[in-house]
C-alpha cells in the first residue's frame, strides 16, 4: 500500500493499538527478564536451617526450571505482539527492530486488517467507513464472530444454567449419566462432532446458515456453562432457599432474589467461557459454515494455510488483548464469588 495514502482514521485506530501494545509489549519484556534471572531468588522459600548444601542447590535448580516453564507458557503469546509491528513481511525480528530503529516498526498490518478486501481503500469520509464495514474481510469476519458468539452464548448460558439448577438438586435422578451427556461435547473430538453436524445439518437445510453455526457453537459452549455454574452451586447453601420460602417468597422471587445473585458470578464466567469457545472455534465453522458465515478463526486458518502474512499476527495480538481483558474479568468475578460464598458460610 502506498505510504502517502494513509488516512487519519487509520492512524487513530492504529495509534490506539500501538499505545496499548507498546505498553503491554514493553511490560512483557521487562517481566520476561525479571522472571528469567530474578525469580528463582524471589520465590526461594525459606529453607529450614537443617537443609544441606545439596538441597539448596537443588532448590535453585528447581526454581530455574519452573521459571523456564513459565517462560515457555507465556513467551509465545507475548512475542507475537512486537512482531506484529514489523515493517517487513516476515515473522521474525529484523535487524532494525532489535536496534529499536523506528523505521523498522510500522502499523501496516493493522491497516491491512481494515483495508483488506475493500473495494476502494482510497475513498474518503463516509464512503471509506461504509466500504470498510461492508467489504473488509477481517471486519466481516469480526462481525460474524461477534454475532454468532453472542447468540450462542445467550442460548448456552440460559439452557445451561437451567440444567445446572436441576443437576444440583439433591433429588436429581440419573445425575452422573446426564452430567456425562451434557459435558460430552467438550470431550468428543471436534472433527467427529463437526462431521456429524455437517451431515445432519445438510439434511435438514441448516448447513451453510447462521442458524447451523450458532447451534454448533451453542452445543460446544454448554459444557463450560454446566461446569462453572454447578461449581458455584456446589457451595450454595440450600437452607437459604428454605429460608426464602419460609418468608413467603414464591419460586420466581426466590430465584431472582436469592439464587440468581449468588450464582451470577458462575453464570457470567460460564458465559465468558462459552463466548470465548465460540470466538475460538474453527473446526465446526470449516465443516458447516459458508463464506457468508466466515469468522475470525476461519479467516486466520485459511490465512495461515494459504498466504501467511503478518496481518495474522496483528489480528492475533488484538485477540491476545481481548483475552487479557476477559481473563481479568473472570478473575474479578471469581474473587467476588468467593467473597459472597465466604459470607454465606459465616
Amino acid at each position, binding site marked *: 500500500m502506498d505510504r502517502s495514502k494513509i488516512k487519519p482514521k487509520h492512524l487513530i485506530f492504529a495509534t490506539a493499538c500501538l499505545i496499548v501494545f507498546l505498553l503491554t509489549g514493553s511490560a512483557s519484556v521487562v517481566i520476561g527478564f525479571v522472571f528469567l534471572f530474578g525469580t528463582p531468588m524471589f520465590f526461594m522459600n525459606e529453607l529450614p536451617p537443617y537443609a544441606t548444601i545439596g538441597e539448596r542447590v537443588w532448590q535453585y535448580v528447581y526454581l530455574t526450571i519452573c521459571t523456564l516453564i513459565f517462560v515457555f507458557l507465556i513467551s509465545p503469546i507475548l512475542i507475537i505482539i512486537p512482531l506484529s509491528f514489523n515493517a517487513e513481511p516476515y515473522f521474525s525480528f529484523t535487524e532494525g527492530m532489535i536496534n529499536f530503529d523506528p523505521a523498522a516498526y510500522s502499523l501496516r498490518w493493522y491497516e491491512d486488517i481494515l483495508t483488506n478486501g475493500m473495494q476502494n481503500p482510497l475513498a474518503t469520509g463516509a464512503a471509506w467507513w461504509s466500504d470498510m464495514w461492508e467489504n473488509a474481510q477481517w471486519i466481516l469476519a469480526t462481525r460474524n464472530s461477534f454475532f454468532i458468539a453472542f447468540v450462542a452464548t445467550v442460548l448456552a448460558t440460559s439452557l445451561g444454567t437451567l440444567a445446572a439448577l436441576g443437576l444440583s438438586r439433591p433429588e*436429581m435422578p440419573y445425575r452422573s449419566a446426564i452430567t456425562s451427556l451434557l459435558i460430552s461435547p467438550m470431550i468428543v473430538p471436534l472433527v467427529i462432532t463437526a462431521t456429524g453436524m455437517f451431515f445432519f445439518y445438510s439434511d435438514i437445510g441448516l448447513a451453510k446458515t447462521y442458524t447451523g453455526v450458532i447451534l454448533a457453537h451453542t452445543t460446544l459452549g454448554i459444557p463450560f456453562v454446566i461446569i462453572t455454574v454447578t461449581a458455584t452451586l456446589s457451595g450454595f447453601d440450600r437452607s437459604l432457599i428454605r429460608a426464602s420460602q419460609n418468608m413467603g417468597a414464591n419460586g420466581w422471587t426466590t430465584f431472582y432474589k436469592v439464587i440468581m445473585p449468588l450464582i451470577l458470578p458462575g453464570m457470567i464466567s460460564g458465559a465468558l467461557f462459552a463466548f470465548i469457545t465460540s470466538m475460538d472455534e474453527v473446526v465446526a465453522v470449516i465443516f458447516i459454515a459458508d463464506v457468508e458465515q466466515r469468522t475470525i478463526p476461519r479467516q486466520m486458518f485459511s490465512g495461515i494455510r494459504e498466504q501467511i502474512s503478518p496481518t495474522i499476527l496483528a489480528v492475533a495480538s488484538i485477540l491476545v488483548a481481548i483475552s487479557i481483558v476477559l481473563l481479568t474479568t473472570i478473575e474479578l468475578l471469581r474473587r467476588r464469588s468467593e467473597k459472597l460464598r465466604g459470607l454465606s458460610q459465616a
Partner: protein
Amino acid sequence: MTDVAFKDQMNEAGELLTADGVPLKQKLAITTRRARMRALLLTAPLIIFLVVSFVIPIGQMLFRSVYNAAGSNVLPNFAVSIQDWDEQGLPTEQMFEDFVKDMQLARKNRITGKTVGNLATRVNYEIPGTRSLFTKSSRKLSKVTEGPYKEALIKIDKKWNDPGLWIALKRVTKDITPYFYLAALDYKYDEKGDIVAADELYQIYVSNFWKTLRLSATITFITILLAYPVSYLLSTLPLRTSNMLMILVLLPFWTSLLVRTTAWIAILQTEGMANDILVFIGIIGDDNRVQMIYNQTGTIIAMVHILLPFMILPLFSVMKTIPPSYMRAARSMGATPFTAFRRIYLPQTLPGLAAGTLLVFILAIGFYITPALVGGEDGLLISNLIAYHIQKSLNWSLGAALGTILLIIVLVLYWLYNKLVGIDKLSFG
C-alpha cells in the same frame, strides 16, 4: 399407649397417614417423584437441545459408517435378483438383464445420488480402477435394446466376464456393509470375496491410529513433566504470589488456539526466532537451520503448549489440599527428600495426576487444527485423515468409520475418567 395417640393418623393396616388421609409412605413417594421430575424438567430443555444438535448428528454419522445405499439406489432390481446368485461362474441372464436395464434407467434419469457415477465410485473403493468401466459401458449400453444381455455387456468390455467383479457387485448392492470398517483397519476383500490384509503400500489407517496414540502419549508425558514442578511451586507459594503466577497459566488457556499455533509458526519456522537465536549463539550455522515445524516436532511443541494448562489446573487443585506438614513429618522421621516425596507426596497427588493425564490424552487424540497447520506430512493425526475423507476424497462412509473408531476410543477413556476422577471434579481456574 403412644399407639392410641396416633390412632387417628393410622389406617387399618397400621400405616401412618398424612393430614389428607393418604398413607405417609405413599405421600412421600409422590413428593419425591415430583421433586425428581422437577429436577429432571429443569434439565429437559438442554437435553432435548443436545439430542437434536449433537446426539442425533453423531448417531447418524455412526450409521453412515455401515450404511451405503449407492449400489441398491442405482441398481434396484439387480440388487434383489443378484442375492440369489451362488457366486459360481457368472450370474444368470436374468440378472444381467436387470443390471443392464437398471444402468440404462440410471443414466437416463440422472438423479443426484443415484447415477452410474455414484455406483462407479462405490465399486471403485473396493476394486480400484473400475470406475471408467462403469461410466464408459453405461454410455455404450444405451444402444443395447434386447438380449442376450450377457453377451452384449461382455462385447462392450471383456472385463464384465470377470466373476470377481460380480461378486463385488453382489456385495455392493447390500445397503449394510462392513467394508468401510475393514478399510479403516487396513483390510479389504480379495476377488473371491474373502477378507484379507490390504497391500502394505496402501496401509495408512492402523499405523495412523497408533501414531496418534503414541504422539498423544508423548505429549501427555511431557505435559506431566512440565506441569508437576510448576503446580507444586504454585501450591506452596503464598496465595498472593501464586495468584500472580497463575495468570501465566491462565492467559495461554484463555488465548485462542489459532493465536497460539500462529505464534509457534512464527517462532519455530526456519527463518523464525528459535533458529535465529540458535544461529546467533553459534550452535548452528546460518545455512543449516533446523526444521522445527511442519513435522512431528512442531506438532508436539505446539500441542504441549496448548494442553499444558489442562494438566496444571487439576494437579494444582489437588496439591493445594496437601498439608506441607506431612512432608516435614516424613523428613523429621529420617526420610531422605526423595523418599519423602515418593512415599508421601506423590501418592497424594495421584488423583490430580489421573485427572490431568486422562483429560490431556483425550483432548490430544482428537486434535485437528494444530496438526493441520504445523504437522506437515508426518505430524498428521487421525482427525486430519477423517477431515480429508469428509472434505477432499468424499469417501464419507470411510470418514465416518474412522470417526466411529476414534469416538469409541475416546468414550472408553471418558468412561474411565468418570470412574476414576468423576466428571463433576472438572473445573477451570
